[in-house]
């Protein structure tokens, strides 16, 4: 079993680009709340948050350079959580 975790060393620049992107997205999501989307504002906010989370996962947390198993596991966990939440709402939504 070899011990060097990733052969790939990510250059600093890339982190800075991603950071820039994340800050942009944050500002956008703040700006968007100023506009009244009504029903959809929750959705918009969550979609933006999910994009940010995906960026963090892929780049900051190195998923992009990691082995296959993790690349399957992580989305699987998020799907699981989503399913659980959907099922809980099968109750609350139809009460």
């Amino acid at each position, binding site marked *: 079993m070899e011990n060097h975790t990733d052969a790939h060393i990510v250059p600093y620049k890339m982190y800075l680009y991603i950071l820039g992107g994340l800050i942009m997205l944050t500002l956008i999501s703040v700006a968007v709340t100023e506009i009244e989307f009504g029903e959809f504002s929750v959705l918009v906010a969550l979609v933006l948050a999910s994009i940010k989370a995906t960026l963090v996962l892929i780049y900051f947390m190195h998923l992009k350079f990691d082995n296959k*198993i993790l690349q399957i596991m992580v989305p699987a966990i998020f799907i699981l959580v989503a399913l659980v939440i959907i*099922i809980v709402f*099968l109750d609350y939504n*139809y009460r």
Partner: protein
Amino acid sequence: MTQNESNQTHVSFRDVETRFKGLFAWVFSTDHKRIGLLYLYSIVTFFLTGVALGIAMKLELMAPGRDVMDPETYNAIFTLHGVIMIFLVVVPGLPAIFGNFFLPIMIGAKDVAFPKLNLMSWWLYVLGALVALSSLFMADGPPDTGWTFYAPYSFKTNTNVLPAVIGAFILGFSSILTGINFIVTIHRLRAPGMGWFKMPLFPWTLYGTGWIQILATPIVGITLLMIVGERLFSIGFFDPALGGDPILYQHLFWIYSHPAVYIMILPAMGAISEIIPTFANKTIFGYKAIVISTLAIAFVGYFVWGHHMFTSGMSGTALYTFSLLTFLVAIPSAIKVFNWVSTLHKASIQLEAPFFWAVSFVFVFMIGGLSGLALGALATNVHLHDTAFVVAHFHYIVFGGVGFAFLGAIHYWFPKMWGRMYNKKRAITGWVLFFIGFNTLYLPMFFLGISGMPRRYYDYVERFHGPNIVSTIGSWVLLIGLVVIIYNLVRSAKKGEPAVKNPWGGKTLEWTVDSPPTLENFEDIPEVTKGPYDYR
């Protein structure tokens, strides 16, 4: 290396000299085998406590009215009984004891991936257990909420709910650490040549269990923390007076606690899947089907929690979704049963104690599982929910399933763990008594439930008297059986005949190492070329 040749130059893991002496050599050992035994001793201690409480309940239920205790005591006793049996005995149960001891050996490794973490999880277990039981010695006494801690009663009662809840939280941590450890071990430490589908079935079930431990336990952790917040700061999460919703508590509780029942049963099924081929001298029927059904149970089992809440006032849509999913999760269990039975076809069966445990496991598991079907259907559940029928169901499947598998496993692996043989005749006597007592104890509860006796009842109306008395008598027979079994095993651990390497002719890797194994298990990591149960 030839089979059954005991090699005198090897030092068993029990006799190894370490930095510490005496007891400390055990409680600070990072050897997976010692940790397994530590778990065994501590779990059995709590288990016997739980048994005593169970017997006490049966005494009280012998006749209507007050027999031996007050309602306060009874309520506290079934709560403690439930908490001990679930959180302290069957959830850690097989993974922590046999998983720790045998997982590395069965996949050809020298230890688990994180030995120190492993030791820590045992310490957390002990800490959690002590915290949970500390309420016994406090003013106002142990909690009286039932092991489910349903809101809002759990923060209205003035008994000591907090220690039990915090204890359960710590125990959850211990369980998570074990799960992480096992998954990483299985991913990283399989011997060369052991592909996923060359892995024995017990490690496979531990793998499924590990995932449930990791993914379900945190939910109960956070739920219990919310109860703490609720009791200390009246945050109002589940208090209807503050806008909270008691049913949401039930959702969160069962999101964990239903998968938890599969944490209990999967390793039990794994142990049975080891015992049956060994004594049948035959490869297991449908290896892949069993593996897939294990993973299917683990996955689908995550989405059926609502079947504990059919009468709680959930929406209709949720009700029938959960009912349907519940039925689907029964299928993989059925597949396993069929495969086990088919393995016996054209086999050559050695009639030994572990095998009797395995066959009777299949029998009681079927009763437990099939009674689960009546609970899973909406109309019948409405009548049976929270009655003695449920109590019968889960004793058949939890204690019938896990208990029988545990006892089968300990008779199966005993020679390997202690390097000695037990008295085979006495082992079978114990099994017979146990089996008779068990059925006498719990079968009547099905009838009580169908005729309408609710559970958690200190007192009952006259017409329930008959079955209850039979049941109480059964509990004594069971107890005698247990005493015979424990006596036999304890005695043999010290005085039994020395055991050979492979007393049963098993094919998995643990039968290729010394009895008991050396500290490192293997001198050289074995190369695996064949499937796990190749009896050709």
